[in-house]
């Protein structure tokens, strides 16, 4: 179930229902599914977004106005120690992630020169085999890694995304380039057993500072932002997507060029798109 946006021709009851939940949302009083509903509605409704922003600032002021005291210096020491320790311990895994990504990139680039179902099927098989290979390597090193490595959200996101390509319910979807990204190719790997998907792209033009590629998941006439990313100097990029609803409920995906930080609705030129 979702709310519709407020418009001149439409009664505002959906917005009223959503705005009833804003304060609970900002106060952390909603359960996960309700919070997702609020976020989905706000993505597509400018007037509610404005209302939520105003209430958010009011509540931030509440937080800022309690009697002030200084955090002990050890908090900062521990914070940066934790960041340093995570960076140190993640390096072996990062190398593996990098090697798998390079492999996937090679496969994707080779497919750019081909077309048709055979190519896509070959790509899916290659990635699945690659994912199995990667997972084997990951299992080999996991027991030797400090616990923090496996508890890290970022690394576990990568871990899960890479597992997708080797899971039985995996879906591999091709995105094709349009406009300035005409020669680009993209790949969305998703699994029915996970709420995440892995996006890989090749041959997208590097963007000027302040601009990003934004991912959109499309369901009917609604476009849901699914995050943004940049590419390196060779045009390669990758990101993990956590959609607002199960991945298989969406009809299509697209990528547009947007200002850094992302846009509420697509405003820039489309560079990649494909059906899911």
């Amino acid at each position, binding site marked *: 179930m979702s709310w519709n946006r407020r418009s001149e021709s439409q009664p505002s009851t959906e917005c009223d229902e959503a705005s009833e939940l804003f304060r609970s949302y900002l*106060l952390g009083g909603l359960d996960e599914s309700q919070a997702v509903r609020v976020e989905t509605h706000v993505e597509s409704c400018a007037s509610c977004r404005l209302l939520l922003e105003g209430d958010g600032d009011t509540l931030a002021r509440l937080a800022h106005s309690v009697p002030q005291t200084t955090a002990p210096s050890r908090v900062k020491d521990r914070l940066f120690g934790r960041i340093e320790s995570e960076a140190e311990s993640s390096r072996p895994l990062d190398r593996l992630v990098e090697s798998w990504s390079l492999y996937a990139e090679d496969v994707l680039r080779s497919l750019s020169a081909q077309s048709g179902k055979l190519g896509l099927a070959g790509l899916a098989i290659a990635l699945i085999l690659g994912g199995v290979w990667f997972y084997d390597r990951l299992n080999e090193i996991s027991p030797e890694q400090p616990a923090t490595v496996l508890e890290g959200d970022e690394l576990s996101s990568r871990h899960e995304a890479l597992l997708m390509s080797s899971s039985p319910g995996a879906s591999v979807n091709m995105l094709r380039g349009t406009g300035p990204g005409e020669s680009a190719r993209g790949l969305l790997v998703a699994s029915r057993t996970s709420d995440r998907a892995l996006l890989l792209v090749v041959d997208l033009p590097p963007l000027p500072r302040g601009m990003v590629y934004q991912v959109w998941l499309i369901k009917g006439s609604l476009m849901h932002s699914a995050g943004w990313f940049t590419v390196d100097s060779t045009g390669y990029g990758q990101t993990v997507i956590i959609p607002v609803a199960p991945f298989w409920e969406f009809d299509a995906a697209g990528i547009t060029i947007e200002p850094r*930080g992302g846009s509420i609705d697509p405003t820039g030129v489309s560079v990649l798109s494909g059906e899911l």
Partner: protein
Amino acid sequence: MVSAMDYENADDRQLIEGICLRDRAALEALYTKYSGPVYSLAMHMLRDAGAAEEVAQDTFFNIWRRANSYKAPRGSVTSWLFSIAHNRTIDELRKRKRDYNRIRHGVDLSNRPTESRGDDPTEYAMAQFEGSRLKDALTTLRPEQREVVVLAYFGGLTHSEISKHLDQPLGTVKTRMRLAIKKLRDVLEPQIRESAEHGM
């Protein structure tokens, strides 16, 4: 990468952009600016220095990890940052409530917490509210509106819990909350505008 000095005059969104690029100097600048208020909020709600330190550390660690998820069109950086801190504090508050209830129900009577919150959430939340600089703003609210805001914000209670505690219908609680936040927004708007002009 730029040095910490380069972030001295940066606004909050520039700091988040720097953090997205994994620049620790940007995180350090954000930490310097907001660690006090974040720690103070947690300390005010939890009344436990150790737990407040954990909340402050976790808040900025999450920002380091999830800076990419900040969406500028949805609100200011301060709104986002304090919602992370507040949610983390509420998690801690609820965890403690569960632990406390377990103790009260006889699992371990010998380890009753020394900093007991008492049995009455209203009493506890009001205690957090006392001495707050917000008192002036909150006292402009009707008593029943003030009660729901204090219970929700400083007491960490959900609407359903407030409804049960006050023995009022859920709809009534939601309406009081909506009117209270609207009123607070009107009262605090000049302060928020002034802070925005000074780059807070």
